[in-house]
């Protein structure tokens, strides 16, 4: 009796582990695995997954995705990868080989994209990644992989250009002990040397640090013109908060990731004025950007972030335009993406190999309660506020 029950349970288990429930069969199936739990969830749930959901909803409300003229509804199949690479790899394999979805959307973060890009490439699924930041990944030259973010050399280059142009002579930098931190610091070092900026302090710190005040105090003693933090959201808040506590007020204060989050303004309040960070768009960039911004707020009661949320949306736009042009033939889509220029909320985008060749490195700044693009002047939505007012 027990054995029979166990056998039945086992069969059910096997079935459950290898199948997924789905609805209609003439819909366009778009699958993905993304971090809904674990350490990557904070980033993924601000920047990426909400955009997937909003996009599918908007497209379906307009009748569906236009596949070479014929409209078909989108069916999203999203799963949690638990911030575990193995789980993401397995889920994407399932989506591509067993479920044979029409399209895939990428996971969050460089690590995940490293693992999933070769698989997508192997099975011939184009992948437009908005949160992959690594020169190494681009150098893998995978034909089906396209990275939307500006890579470290561009972003750090733009930052140094701006600092030099605005008269900064000395800079102190702290950076995270991980791929993002290391690639950016390498780019930073190169750019600073080229422009003749003197680096007076250069310290790294591990993930999960809870107190950087000793480091910041030491930096304050050296009185640099600019402070650059190559930091992730928790550390961005930490350096901002602790700089305020010790009254460290350099003329330029930059923290890379997290400054673009609406939470930053909430937390720092009036003190956010003048803080610089990685950002590429704001709602004042174009009417299209504003429409996207408002729709996001209406659906999720939270704003998109001014850095990679824009790239995520742009990636979806590119996907949509490609399907419209060449249908769901994934090889044809790849070729189309590789050689065409697309209109997106970030402006026109064209790819060179796996890299976004159109958007230059940018720097954004909190000005008047909005995180505006302030560099390069050609793309700016506001002028650089310098020097940064003292923390309030």
């Amino acid at each position, binding site marked *: 009796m027990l054995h029979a029950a166990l056998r039945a349970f086992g069969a059910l288990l096997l079935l459950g582990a290898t199948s997924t429930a789905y609805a209609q069969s003439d819909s366009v199936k778009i699958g993905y695995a993304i971090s809904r739990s674990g350490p990557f969830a904070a980033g993924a749930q601000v920047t990426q997954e909400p955009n997937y959901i909003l996009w599918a909803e908007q497209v379906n409300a307009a009748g569906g995705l236009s596949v070479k003229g014929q409209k078909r509804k989108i069916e999203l199949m999203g799963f949690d990868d638990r911030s575990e690479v193995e789980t993401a790899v397995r889920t994407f394999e399932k989506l591509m080989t067993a479920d044979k979805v029409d399209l895939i959307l990428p996971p969050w973060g460089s690590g995940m994209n490293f693992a999933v890009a070769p698989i997508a490439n192997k099975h011939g699924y184009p992948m437009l990644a908005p949160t992959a930041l690594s020169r190494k990944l681009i150098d893998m030259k995978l034909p089906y992989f396209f990275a939307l973010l500006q890579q470290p050399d561009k972003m750090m280059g733009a930052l140094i250009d701006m600092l030099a142009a605005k008269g900064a002579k000395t800079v102190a930098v702290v950076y995270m002990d991980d791929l993002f931190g290391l690639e950016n610091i390498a780019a930073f070092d190169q750019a600073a040397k080229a422009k003749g900026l003197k680096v007076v302090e250069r310290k*790294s710190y591990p993930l999960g640090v809870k107190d950087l005040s000793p480091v910041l105090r*030491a930096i304050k003693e050296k009185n640099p013109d600019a402070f650059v933090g190559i930091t992730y959201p928790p550390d961005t808040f*930490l350096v901002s*908060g602790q700089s305020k506590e010790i009254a460290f007020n350099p003329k330029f204060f930059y923290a890379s990731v997290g400054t673009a989050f609406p939470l930053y303004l909430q937390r720092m309040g009036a003190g956010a004025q003048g803080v610089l960070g990685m950002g590429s768009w704001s709602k004042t960039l174009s009417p299209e950007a504003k429409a996207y911004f408002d729709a996001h707020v209406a659906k999720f009661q939270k704003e998109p972030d001014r850095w990679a949320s824009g790239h995520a949306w742009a990636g979806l736009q590119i996907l949509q335009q490609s399907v419209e042009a060449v249908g769901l033939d994934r090889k044809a889509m790849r070729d189309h993406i590789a050689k065409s220029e697309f209109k997106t909320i970030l402006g026109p985008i064209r790819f060179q190999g796996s890299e976004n060749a159109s958007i230059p490195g940018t720097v954004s700044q909190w000005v008047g309660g909005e995180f505006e693009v302030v560099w390069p002047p050609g793309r700016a939505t506001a002028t650089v506020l310098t020097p940064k007012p003292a923390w309030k």
Partner: protein
Amino acid sequence: MTLWFELGAAGLIIGGVYALVAVGLNLQYGLMRILNVAHGEFLMLGAYLAYWAHLLSGLSPLLFLPLVFVALTALGIAVHLLCFRRLAASTPEVEAFEARSLLVAFGLMFIVQNLALLAWGGDLRGYAYLDRPVDLLGLSVAANRLVAFLCALGISRGLVVLLRATLVGKAVRAMMQAPIGAELVGIEVRRLHPLMFGLGIGLAGVAGALLSMVYEISPAMGESYTVTALIVITLGGLGSVGGSLAGGLLLGVVETFGTHLTNPSLRMLLSYGVFIAVLLVRPKGLFAR
């Protein structure tokens, strides 16, 4: 000279935060041999409670500390009655009980963290409270960190007094020293265990509420605090409240001085190195009697 002073102050303050986080876990392990790896999750709940209370009412989160304490103590009592009581009844051997309660605590960790994720989403949240610097003997220290430090001291002192001076406290200490003997002399172990477990959870909640003033919160924040708590109580001696305060402060100071003298990247290596060294040399902890 001022630099050493500053470092020392910073070290003590972050150490106070560590001690605060650990004090609840100590009660549960020292008394009941329940290694509650879900400790950080209850800390997270306290943090969220304070966050929502502050956001919705606009009042100081410090006013809600008693509320957070009571709510989480009640939750802790419920958890003990539902999960651990039955386990204690069916597993008299200590080692087996420790192992199984560890597993149950893992289950709790999954449940609490993911319910929070479902309810509030994975994003970071935060608010600014008392983040002005305060002048302390010529040093500037963040007011909210200072408050956390003072609360850590206060709570630890309060607990020590409770354990020493009150009848309930004496009963608890008796149970820690000789579980069977305590029952024999008529101490109501069955009633005190859930209460003490609940107290541990309540304290975790208070720690979380205080921390929400200083750091951003998210459903995933608990784990790193559980690890910190584990290190601190092991350093200080399992079951010793004064020990975990001292252990926390020591950890904070060692980290701060160590990373200044070497490299912030070595911070974690230092913490774990010290931890392992202490365990190897004095496994009962630095301050256990």
